[in-house]
Structure formats: C-alpha cells, structure tokens
C-alpha cells in the first residue's frame, strides 16, 4: 500500500482531508479504503454549492463488492467536484490520495481539522 502523505488528516471511516494553500479543503478516500473496496465502479458526488456538516454523508463510492458512504471530514460549502470520476471511477483505485479526490470544501471552521486523525493515528487505526 502507498505511504500516507504527511499533510493529510483522516476520519476513522477512511476519508482524508487536505488543507490546500488557498485555504480550501480537498476530500477523498484513503488508499487503504480503495484497497478494501476492490475495483471501484461508480462514484456519486455531491452537488456544487451544497452545504455539508462534518460527518455528514456527502458522496457514495461503489465497488464490485459493496457501496459505501463517503462522509465529509469538515463542514462547509462544496465548491468543486471531481467529475472525471464519473467516467473513470478506477482513478480512485489508482491514485486515492491525488487524482482520485472527490470534492473540495470551502470550510466554515478551519479548527475542525484538529479533530481529525493524524497520518500516524490513522495508520494505527487501520492496523486494529
């Protein structure tokens, strides 16, 4: 499995959040999650401009094995979605931490990121 990038934060339900330089937060699912799901065949993305709260269901990822909800690690407004995943959902399998991102959020409270798991904590969580 791929190394977890240092500046990423996680929910225990396997979503990552990355604070970008422009202050926006990018969200995706971890490499561990894509590996557990197997071949991903459908991705359902949130609507642009929709509001989400931390922990809300914001997207759905479906693999040959199972469908699972993707929860938003932060609260705010969805300002962008990775619509290329609709035609190429396998991108999530190939590049979960980079090209396979799901959506970007304009966060309401940046301090919410502090509630999330660090790469070390998340990695320990995956080993449990």
């Amino acid at each position: 499995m791929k190394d977890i990038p240092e500046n990423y934060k996680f929910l225990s339900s396997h979503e990552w959040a990355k604070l970008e330089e422009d202050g926006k937060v990018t969200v995706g699912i971890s490499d561990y999650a894509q590996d557990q799901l197997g071949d991903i065949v459908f991705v359902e993305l949130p609507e642009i401009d929709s509001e989400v709260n931390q922990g809300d269901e914001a997207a759905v990822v479906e693999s040959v094995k199972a469908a699972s909800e993707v929860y938003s690690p932060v609260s705010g407004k969805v300002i962008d979605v990775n619509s290329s995943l609709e035609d190429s959902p396998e991108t999530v399998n190939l590049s979960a931490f980079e090209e396979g991102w799901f959506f970007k959020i304009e966060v309401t409270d940046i301090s919410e990121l502090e509630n999330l798991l660090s790469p070390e904590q998340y990695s320990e969580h995956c080993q449990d």
Partner: protein
Amino acid sequence: MVDFHGWDMPIHYGSQLKEHEFVRNSCGIFDVSHMTILDIKGKDAKEFLRKLLANDVNALERDFDGMYSALLNETGGILDDLIAYKLESGYRLVVNCATRELDISWMESQLGNMDISLSERTDLSMIAIQGPLALDTLSKCFSPDASNELIKRTPFQGLMEEGTLVTTTGYTGEKGVEVMIDHEKAKTLWEKALVCGAKPIGLGARDTLRLEAGMNLYGFEMDEKISPLECNMAWTVSLKDKERDFIGKDSFKLKKETGEYHVLKGLLFEDRCIVRSDHEIFMDEQKMIKGVVTSGTYSPTLKKSIALARIPPSNLKNCLAEVRGKTVRASIGEPKFVKEGKIVFKNKTS
C-alpha cells in the same frame, strides 16, 4: 483470500475487472476444485438418475457427453443444480460444494434396494479454461488428437484423455472447457496454460462472468423453495418420456399448469448504482406489485449495472427499484446479457 465453504479461494488475483475482461477477450484459467465430483456406478445407475434428476440422462447418447439438470425435492424445489456426464460405465455428477453434504445424504436416502455405488472423487481437481482463446491454449496443453477432437465438440460434450475428463462446459458464456484431472497433472496443466498466456481468474470475476452470461448460482437464483419455472430452468426439466417418473415431477407439472409463478428476467439499469441480491423490485409506480433481485452486479462488458430478478410475469418493458432513497428504473429483458464477448441483452416484453 476468502473461506468459501471450507476452501481457501481468491476473490481476485489483482483486479476483478481486469480478470473479467481477460476472459472475454483472451483466456482465463479457474481453479474450481471446490466443486464436488460424484461417480455413480452399478447396474441401476441409469434408472436411479432418471428418477433422481429432472433432466433425463437417457438423452446422453455418447460417452462423456453431459447435461445440465436440477435436483428436485418432492415439492419441486431445487436442492441443487448440477451437470451429469455419461461415462463408459455409469455417470458422473458435478454438484455445488455448498450443497455437498445435503446432496450426498439426499441421494443416499433415495437409493432403496437399487444396485448403485456412489463415490466422491476427491482424487480429482477441476480446472476451467475459458475465453475466445481457450481452445488455442488447450491445443498446447493436450495431445494434437485430443485438441482436434475438442474443436469439433459442441457445448456439453466431452472426451477422456488418459484418465482426464475434458468437457466443453463452463460458467462464463465463452467458449472453453472444464477439466477433471488428477491433482498432480492439474498442477502441470495450470503451469502450462499460464505459459501459453492464460491468466488465473478469481471468484469475483467468476461471478460477474456467469451473471452476464445469465447463468444461475445456487442460493441466489435457486434454492429448495424455488421451482425451475421461477429461475429460467424449465428447459432442463424433461417431460418427453411420459412414462418416466422423477422426484418433483407432479409438483412441477401442477405449478406449470396453474401458471402462477414469478419468472427470472434480466434487468439493465442506467443509474450509477448496483442493485444487489434481495433488493425489492417494483412493477408499478405505486410500488405495490413486487419482485426481487436474485443477483446484481456491475457488468464490465456493458459498463452498466445489471441484475437477475424474479418478477411477476408481465408485458412491461421497465420496472423500478429504490436505492439509497432514490427511485431507479430498469429495462427488462431475457436473463442473458453477454454471449461469446457480444452484448445480447434486449429490452423486450415476453
């Protein structure tokens, strides 16, 4: 790896989707040694199977030919689905591993005073080689005589080569064979096939391949409460010989005459979601008339969500399902999506 009824089996060897596509375009090799092989010998073998099976083994004329059949209980429900092959002496049944114990005890309970010996061939492995290039691969693994013979065979025929039974059967909708072979020889065959370009295929792709081909899986499309009429298996029930009495015959005929049963159809969804087994299907906007999905998956060939479903007979072209709070629509057609690499599903009424 997963525990599949006591067998350690891989879901995939890397990517389920790639394995699926490889079988459709090239040649895949499957270790299906979990299947239970039973040899039925003795003076009364034929009589026994004519009573036991819904299909009639009397139609097997040549040695090593096979037929698909249901094993019915008295009420016409399906205890198992199997393939019966005629051997030089006696018959061979290949049954599911999940139903192994129940099948064997059912058969033993039906023996009565008949002269029958029933033996499980745990000394044999079973390997399937499937795909448009399967016969090319085989020609490199078997003697030229055997491969020339195999090319001439139509589906459900076979030959015996040095104790190895090779039959033109499979569970993918592609050309290919299934091979029942001594364990040591199986290893050699496996390695040879890989050298010839075949790739190993796991349980995951085995399931999506059979679903696209519209083939049933025991425990999903059928079980002991489901009649062959309800799972597209009526064609395997032979009523040709009116004198033949087989287990479940009366119940089957009665149900057929009343016409009151649901039927197995294929569903194709445009929405981006898989409608999996046990999911409810609705025939009307009011969601009052219901059916059920028996198996659902993502079809790598159609690149869409497909399902097999047991639904009330109708001339409707569409039906509905509810997924994550959203109503999705499916086209209804015959339960077959892909045959030999080509999409054959048609949205039609019956």
